Structure formats: C-alpha cells, structure tokens
C-alpha cells in the first residue's frame, strides 16, 4: 500500500513536469526569425531583430536603480553584467528560443524572445 502511494505521487509529479516541459517546448517550436524584445517597467524600449550579428556586441540599459549590460551574439541574448541586487538576470544565462525570458526584478527589466509565428498569438 505504501509503495503504491509512492508510485502514485511519482506519477503525478512526473506528469506535472512533463506538462510543463511540453508547454516550454511548444513555446519554442516553429518560431522563425526570433527577435528579442526588451521591456523596462512594462514599456517596450528596444527590439533586437538580429540575434546572430557578424560580431558579438553589447549595449547598456540604464534605469533609475542602476544598469544592465546586454550582449547579443550567436543567436543568443543575455545579461552579461548588472549592478542589481541579486544577479538573477546574469545567472539566468543565455536565451535563444521563443517564449524564453530573462527578468531582472530589481531593475524592472524584461528580455523576451518572440518569433514571427508568435507575435500575434501570444499576449
């Protein structure tokens, strides 16, 4: 009976993980020409159309609480440097696929990848 309980819970938790993985993968599928949208406090301040420039480059985003250095290259975009309080944005690593997001909560900065097939589908 107890072994059965373990099994039931294992199945439930694995199912939740699988559903989440499916949601994540679905967001990444079928996207052409991924673009990065950068928001500061819910306002779209910049769109990076080409994530694969000939040469990697960085730009700086200043907000009232500090700055973030964003780097683009090799089909990816990431926060390479920040003076924010918890560095979650830097630790988040590089993103490249549709639906992926980097959030710097203290600076109210959001970097989001969208692609052609999704721009009108996703709110």
């Amino acid at each position, binding site marked *: 009976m107890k072994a059965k309980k373990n099994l039931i819970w294992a199945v439930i938790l694995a199912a939740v*993980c699988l559903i989440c993985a499916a949601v994540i993968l679905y967001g990444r599928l079928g996207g052409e020409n991924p673009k990065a949208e950068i928001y500061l406090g*819910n306002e779209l301040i910049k769109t990076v159309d080409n994530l694969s420039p000939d040469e990697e480059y960085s730009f700086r985003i200043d907000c009232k609480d500090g700055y973030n250095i964003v780097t683009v290259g090799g089909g990816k975009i990431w926060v390479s440097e920040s003076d924010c309080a*918890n560095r979650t944005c830097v630790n988040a690593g590089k993103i490249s696929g549709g639906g992926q997001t980097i959030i710097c909560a203290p600076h*109210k900065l959001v970097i989001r990848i969208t692609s052609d097939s999704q721009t009108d589908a996703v709110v």
Partner: protein
Amino acid sequence: MKISAKKIALIGVFTALSLIIFIVEAQFPTSGIGGIKLGLANVATMVAMLFIGRREAGIVLYLRIILAAAFYGTFVSFLFSLVGGTFAYLVMCLLMCRFDKKQIWVVSAFGGVFHNVGQLIAAGFISGTSMVITLFPYLLISGIVTGVLTGLITQRLWFSSLRKYSLRKE
C-alpha cells in the same frame, strides 16, 4: 511555552548547519534558468521539523534568513528568501503530519514548488510586471526536482541512526 535546554541547543545546531549550507551553496554560481538552486538549506529546516517540531523549524528558518541577510545579503535577496521560505514552510507545516514518513519526498516537492511560487510572486511584485508568469513552467519543474532531491536526503536522515536524537516520539 517552556523550551528545554536540549531544544534550544538543537535549534542552535540546526540554525548553524542551515546557515553554513546556505552560504556554501551561495558560493557556487548558479546556472540555468533563473539561477536555480538546490535549496539544501531546506534539509535543515525539514529535519528540524521532524526532529523537534513545526514551531522550532520556523525559528530555524527565520533565523537563517535573517542571519544570511545580515552576513552578505541585499534587501531584494532577503525579500525573495523571506517570501519563498514562508510559502514553503507553511505548505510543509500543513502536509508533514498528513503524509507518511515514507512520503517526506512528496511533502518536500510541494515545499519546493511553493517556494518557487512565492519567489515568482515576489519577483512580480518587485518588478511590477506580469511577464514573470512566463517563468512559471520552469519554476514548477525546478521546484519539483529540487524538492524531491532535498526530500529524499531528509527522508534518508530520518530513517538513519540520527533519529535517536529526535525529541519527537513517532
């Protein structure tokens, strides 16, 4: 509430252990989405809950959060730990006595998920954007995986010879 000397000593030991684990873990650069951590310090909270009691586990948790913030934390990281820790603590208080000791790993998985939900709410509150919701599927998976792992460690400790130090007769 009368607290025995033995209880106070155990609370001190668990708080010290959890602070050490927390600081060591913080030294490793976290990788992946959203800087996911294993949350090993939570093992100390859970063991305290099993060995001493729910209230005492709360003392261990909040002492660790306050001390960690005092050592090198920032206000934002303190807020994240506080909200995440409280969510996890409350759900584990609710579930721990309702589940068999062989299912500590399930209780811990719920704790991990609620910890992340709490952090997501904190992130939404701090950043003032609802776009944090896009991190939800990642955080659900990481909460389950890290919760199950820390839960299995806790379960292992409960079913070990260490149990003779437990103040609870169960």
